[in-house]
């Protein structure tokens, strides 16, 4: 523990220490990379040495003030941090209850929180002497962030993406290629995000000498869950500072949860602050049958080991990974980060679900009423905000993380919200080519 010094960096160090100490207390000796029963490093032997190397390099970098200065500089000048915190006054006036504030993380460069982690890991990779970056992407937001950051740092970049996702997220494929990345289609399995992770792990097991695997969420084998959380904790630290400036002590924080990187980054500085409720919102999709949603908490997920870590996953009774569904490709992943699974078990983080329809309605509502365009993923968090706000009085506040902005969802949003107009437009566009 670094003591109670001022400034975000000191806060980061003490958060990290608290995290580790808490976990050891819960899980005992020799399990430093577990959160309760979840986490760990369940990998084939060939990946052990690159993970050891990465863990050491991360621990060194995070306590090196030169690295921190470099990271802060890129976050400020390229990413555009700090991202603003804004009061959603019109919505608060309409629904009553606690005042709703929105952390506009989607205003970060490339449109989502993903860039925080991409910058952190890419700088780390360069420091480790790696010349090539590989990444997985589902919706494409992580891929776009990684491709852009690699372009800035002069690193070669290959992004694995399921063929199905490439079709669904064509604009992001286009932008990744503009940033100079190669987008490598993955045809195996369900041809979605989980299969892109498999393929990236396969690549890395043959290429780690000159290649860093820039994993995009708080999951996978250790040290990824710790490392990605630390690079995303800037969201929560800024929120704390911005709330303090306004004299707010939030009663609750709300975030959508796919793998969970925006949520844990947002929640992380508040974990020990029991006065603030932490609420994660999962993708309720079209229903609770297998294949119709991507919600792992509240009884739908089973303990399992996939992608090198133990957590709650959507599995059949033989442990085979089930298909998932969400209108938002970024929440469409069968597992949840191990720390969030643990915090769900202990009750520190509450989990709710929002359906596809509820997310689309929330997107529309916040756009019309506040001029805020949520990404479909983040709109799941927004969907839960009114009900949570109404549990409190108007002298209290809740903060909602808009982890991404919605421009990227033009194709899906238009198909769902303005089908006929969109069809006409596409037809005219096609004919004009």
């Amino acid at each position, binding site marked *: 523990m670094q003591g109670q010094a001022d400034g975000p960096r000191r806060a980061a160090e003490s958060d990290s220490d608290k995290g580790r100490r808490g976990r050891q207390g819960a899980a005992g000796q020799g399990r430093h990379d577990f959160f309760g029963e979840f986490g*760990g490093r369940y990998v084939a*032997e060939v990946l052990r040495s690159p993970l050891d190397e990465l863990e050491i390099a991360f621990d060194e970098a995070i306590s090196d003030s030169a690295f921190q200065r470099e990271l802060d500089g890129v976050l400020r000048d390229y990413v555009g941090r700090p991202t603003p915190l804004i009061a959603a006054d019109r919505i608060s006036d309409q629904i009553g209850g606690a005042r709703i504030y929105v952390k506009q993380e989607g205003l970060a460069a490339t449109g989502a929180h993903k860039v925080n982690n991409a910058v952190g890991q890419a700088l780390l990779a360069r420091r480790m002497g790696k010349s090539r970056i590989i990444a997985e992407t589902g919706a494409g937001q992580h891929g776009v962030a990684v491709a852009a950051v690699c372009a800035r740092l002069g690193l070669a970049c290959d992004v694995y993406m399921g063929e199905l996702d490439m079709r669904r997220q064509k604009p992001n494929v286009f932008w990744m290629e503009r940033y100079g990345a190669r987008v490598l289609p993955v045809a195996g399995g369900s041809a979605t995000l989980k299969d892109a992770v*498999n393929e990236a*792990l396969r690549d890395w*097991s043959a290429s780690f000498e000159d290649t860093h695997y820039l994993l995009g969420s708080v999951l996978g084998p250790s040290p990824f869950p710790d490392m990605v959380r630390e690079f995303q904790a800037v969201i929560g630290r800024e929120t704390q500072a911005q709330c303090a400036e306004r004299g707010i002590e939030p009663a609750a924080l709300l975030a959508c949860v796919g793998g969970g990187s925006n949520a844990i980054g947002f929640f992380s500085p508040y974990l020990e602050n029991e006065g603030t409720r932490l609420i994660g919102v999962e993708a309720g999709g079209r229903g609770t049958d297998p294949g119709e949603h991507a919600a792992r908490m509240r009884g739908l997920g089973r303990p*399992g080991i996939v992608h*090198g870590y133990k957590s709650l996953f959507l*599995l059949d009774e*033989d*442990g085979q990974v089930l298909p998932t569904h969400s209108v938002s490709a970024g929440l469409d992943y069968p597992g949840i980060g191990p720390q969030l699974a643990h915090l769900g078990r202990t009750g520190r983080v509450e989990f709710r679900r929002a359906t596809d329809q509820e997310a689309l309605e929330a997107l529309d509502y916040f756009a019309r009423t506040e001029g805020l365009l949520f990404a479909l993923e983040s709109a799941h968090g927004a969907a839960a905000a009114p009900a949570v706000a109404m549990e409190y009085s108007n002298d209290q506040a809740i903060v909602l993380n808009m982890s991404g902005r919605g421009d990227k969802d033009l194709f899906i949003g238009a198909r769902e919200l303005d089908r006929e107009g969109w069809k006409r437009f596409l037809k005219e566009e096609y004919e004009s080519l």
Partner: protein
Amino acid sequence: MSAIGPAGRASLMAHLVAYYPDRESSFHTALGLVDAGVDFLEIQFPFSDPTADGPAIQEACATALETGFTMAGGFQLVGELAQRTDRPIMLMSYAGPVFARGVARFVSEAAERGVAGLIVPDLPLDPQYNEGLFEAARGAGIEAVPVVVAGAPEERVRLVLEWEARYVYVALRRGTTGDQTTLTPEAVAFLDRIRSAGVYTFAGFGVSSREQVEQLGAHADSVVVGSAFVRTVHARKEYGPAQVRNGVYHLAAELVGGPRGPASRNGRRRRGRSRSGLGRL
């Protein structure tokens, strides 16, 4: 099981995926391999997300799941095979299905069905990550086989030796199954060192010819051939179980050096192999 393979030459472990391309074909594949003279059968229970496998085995696992593989069905298949052959059966799978079954239950079912050993690459020997697999296997009188990578740091080797593993699986290179690799002088030295500690060594990754079997066999107790058999099954799967069996039979017979002759022939073959062992594997 103390004398595995004809005296004086390396044995061969052939890998197949249970239920690939369907239950019946995989049953006949296994029997074809045994008839051709392979010494071990390594039967993979498919997992939806096999991250240590290359394209051939990945696709085989996906097909096997589509054609109805279940853990219960897999154990049934293995039990039937164990009654048809005295070749040791090694069961390979991933942490996902093993953990879902319950490690203790998985191990006891394997032992009951006559399995000799378990290979679960993402449950390493480290106590915090193996979910009790190694202890449970030993308790059930079978062996969980740890994996080491050729050239691994000394502490990884020591972990295996201190466990007094009966078998060890040496992964000769980086990457996933099915990739080609080269047997470097460093890998040879590593294999010789593990073997000199008295551990029975399996070595593989990318072996598909008799020449490679001979080269690697000079430095390992048993040579593992996986993707080459899976590719053969793939090429013939449209023609039915008999053709699949014939395909793997002929490949296996070629790899073991023709139908198994008397030990003296094998002795000559061994002398002929006493070169550097360098070459593509």
